[in-house]
């Protein structure tokens, strides 16, 4: 549109008419500068346009800000408020925690129509069963899947053996552990250096291989992961069996996030960019060849999210709905046999499902999933004599006890916990600032359907990490949020590229612009990948933060 004097001349029209014309002009200009298809991503009927105050996430943000402000100002000062850096750290930690708690509460309360009506922009509605950003062709899909698999494999090789960051960060040089010798917390599996916990998984592995009797250990609850490893033990040996299961989980995670992206974001690039972020993701790089259940559990988390969509658990009714619920319960329960993946999955199911799926179905899924995860404990105790106690088996219960003690000590102790166990440091350890900034941009440009889902995945993943934080601050637990964070960050990166190089109506010009946007995205992804690969040049800062959180440092 060309601006001319005529557009703005009085021309004898009445002020109301001029105002109407001006408004229409502004809307048209806005549509040209920020067209929906460029920023993705808002759809014409997006209820999120109804007003900022109409969204649960924003309301939760305001409530959290008020509570955090009260706790910062009304509780007597201490070291946690002594400097600006500490004060900001405390404030962010409090805000994130109360935002998560409030958002979860508001979402769950949405099952009540009265509460649901408070937020006209976020009224739960039935999910449209659709795939909006699928690959253009099977060839392109296969080529991308192969490229992602190769990228995961390259990262897995680069960060394997003695270079595995889980192991490397336990060496004295990393400055994190003061009790380890020069090799760090290590064991040697089949002649290869591996993270030390692998030693404690060998009894379970031996049990599945028929080499050893049932002996209780620290990781009895994670036996499902060791069972999968045992399927590869005979041909590969322990080290490569653990490592190969990790690689399979890594690739599966990237492909699952890609699938989630193309299902919920209309722009095909979002899923693809997010898949690259997984392939170069800090959490998977940190685990690489470590004999640990986390990569498998992270993959299970994303795969179950895909499954929940595929079986249409959010929309199906009647017999189909029951079958979908059964599949969801079974898959969620299986995730609980690998690690504690069933907890974030159940939270996601409730937070996103509230208002979409009947509470009875949600309760049924919960009970069945917990029953499957708990069945192994009963079975193992009764038939194998495993104890499921001690060490890592008891950590979650220990965290709950600490919360009760803190709460019994009053507000000062409660606030101090957010300094002693900085939630900000925990989340920044999981995903460093650039990912959060991109995810913030992505959140702003993402439409209702994907936004509410991503927030459900996000709170479902970080709530357990926050709950566990008095015991240990473990970014690897918060890393369950990776499908949400990486997809939102990808949406943010794509939106930035589109804002920098807007699409052109002319196909020829658009061809070169598309290349320019692709270059911007590639540069962004390369920058992020450099950060997650800094350990290869001896800088363990990010991997140390991923190991034990950033605490109060900025």
């Amino acid at each position, binding site marked *: 549109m060309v601006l001319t004097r005529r557009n703005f001349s009085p021309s004898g029209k009445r002020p109301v008419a001029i105002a109407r014309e001006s408004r229409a002009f502004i809307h048209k200009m806005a549509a040209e500068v920020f067209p929906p298809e460029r920023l993705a991503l808002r759809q014409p009927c997006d209820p999120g346009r109804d007003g900022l105050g109409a969204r649960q996430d924003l309301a939760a943000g305001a409530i959290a800000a008020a509570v955090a402000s009260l706790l910062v100002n009304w509780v007597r000062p201490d070291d946690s408020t002594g400097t600006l850096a500490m004060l900001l750290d405390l404030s962010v930690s409090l805000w994130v925690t109360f935002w998560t708690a409030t958002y979860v509460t508001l979402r769950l309360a949405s099952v009540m129509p009265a509460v649901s009506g408070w937020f006209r922009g976020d009224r739960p509605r039935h999910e449209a069963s659709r795939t909006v950003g699928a690959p253009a062709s099977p060839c392109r899909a296969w080529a991308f899947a192969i490229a992602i698999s190769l990228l995961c494999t390259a990262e897995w090789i680069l960060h394997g053996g003695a270079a595995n960051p889980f192991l490397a960060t336990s060496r004295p040089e990393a400055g994190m552990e003061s009790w380890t010798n020069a*090799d760090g917390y*290590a064991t*040697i599996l089949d002649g290869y250096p591996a993270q030390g916990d692998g030693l404690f998984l060998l009894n379970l592995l031996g*049990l599945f291989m028929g080499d050893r009797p049932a002996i209780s250990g620290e990781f009895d609850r994670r036996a499902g992961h060791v069972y999968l490893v045992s399927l590869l033990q005979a*041909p590969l040996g322990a080290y490569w069996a653990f490592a190969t299961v990790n690689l399979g989980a890594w690739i599966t995670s990237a492909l699952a996030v890609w699938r989630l992206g193309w299902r919920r974001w209309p722009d095909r690039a979002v899923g693809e960019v997010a898949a690259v972020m997984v392939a170069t993701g800090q959490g998977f790089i940190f685990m690489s060849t470590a004999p640990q259940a986390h990569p498998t559990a992270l993959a299970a988390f994303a795969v179950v999210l895909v499954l929940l969509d595929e079986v249409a658990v959010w929309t199906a009714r009647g017999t189909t709905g029951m079958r979908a619920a059964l599949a969801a319960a079974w898959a969620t*329960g299986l995730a609980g046999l690998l690690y504690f993946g069933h907890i974030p999955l159940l939270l996601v199911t409730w937070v996103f499902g509230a208002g979409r799926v009947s509470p009875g179905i949600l309760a049924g899924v919960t009970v069945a999933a917990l029953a*499957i995860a708990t069945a192994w404990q009963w079975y193992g105790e009764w038939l*194998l004599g495993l104890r499921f106690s001690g060490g890592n088996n008891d950590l979650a219960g220990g965290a709950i006890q600490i919360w009760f003690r803190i709460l019994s000590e009053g507000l000062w102790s409660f606030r101090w916990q957010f300094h002693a166990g900085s939630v900000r440091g925990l989340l920044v350890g999981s995903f460093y600032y650039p990912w959060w900034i991109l995810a913030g941009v992505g959140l702003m440009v993402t439409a209702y359907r994907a936004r509410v889902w991503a927030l459900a995945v996000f709170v479902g993943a970080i709530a357990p990490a926050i709950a566990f934080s008095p015991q240990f601050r473990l970014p690897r637990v918060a890393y369950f949020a990776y499908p949400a964070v990486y997809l939102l960050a990808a949406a943010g990166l794509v939106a930035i590229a589109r804002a920098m190089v807007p699409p052109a109506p002319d196909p020829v010009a658009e061809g070169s612009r598309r290349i320019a946007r692709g270059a911007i995205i590639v540069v962004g992804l390369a920058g992020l990948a450099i950060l997650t690969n800094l350990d290869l040049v001896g800088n363990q800062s990010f991997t140390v933060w991923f190991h034990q959180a950033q605490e109060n440092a900025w």
Partner: protein
Amino acid sequence: MVTAGRMRAASVAATVAALAISVAGTPAQTAIARAFFVVTILAGLVAGAGLRGPRTQLAVALAALVLVIGQVIPGGRPVTEPPSPDWRAVLETTSDRAEVRMRLDASAWRDALGRASAAWAYVCAEGIGSREHALTLHVQTDQAQMAVPVGAPNAIGARPRPEQGGMYRVPVRLDSLHEASVATLSVTLAGTSPTPVRLCGTHSIRPSWGEPTSALVRGGIATAPGPKGPGRWVIELRLVGANDRLLLAWY
């Protein structure tokens, strides 16, 4: 043309076969443990694959069957016990000596040495108690040799408890390490009628120079320490740079 019904039947048969193969001919506890996960995980995966159609389901069922056969096939690799990461050996008499030889010509060492402002020797020991001079550390390089006492005041780190294992560190002259290609660190009991001290040992990850680098010299005879495999004493050199930041832990 195989019908969908037949493919589903074949998937069920393959899953049942996987269960049977998993539990047949194995110790009872192994069969019990495997059965749980075949029924939950493998059967669950096969059932889930059914959502993608009978062909995918059959492929997953056959893949599960292949994996299960691979698990039980004779000649597979056993689960071997790794070398112990944490063992002890006792220095009983004044003639006993724990000895470690280190190569100091590696590029990692040279790089760190160039930036180092201090060097320490770390010794992991158990049973030193409150004695100020329980052990003597002898450091010998191409350039110099020195003997320094090791005792309770040298305890450092998270786990130095009076009667338990922990790290003890003593300073080493940095100039004695410059230009040196080899260092020999040995630990002996202090005094004429000493109390036995247990020294910590671990596995050795870093490739050595073709021969054991740790030795227990007892009665003039050197043996490789450790319960099995090429273990090493936890006797290390650590280089520290600016701001007391540890640059390298070396053995």
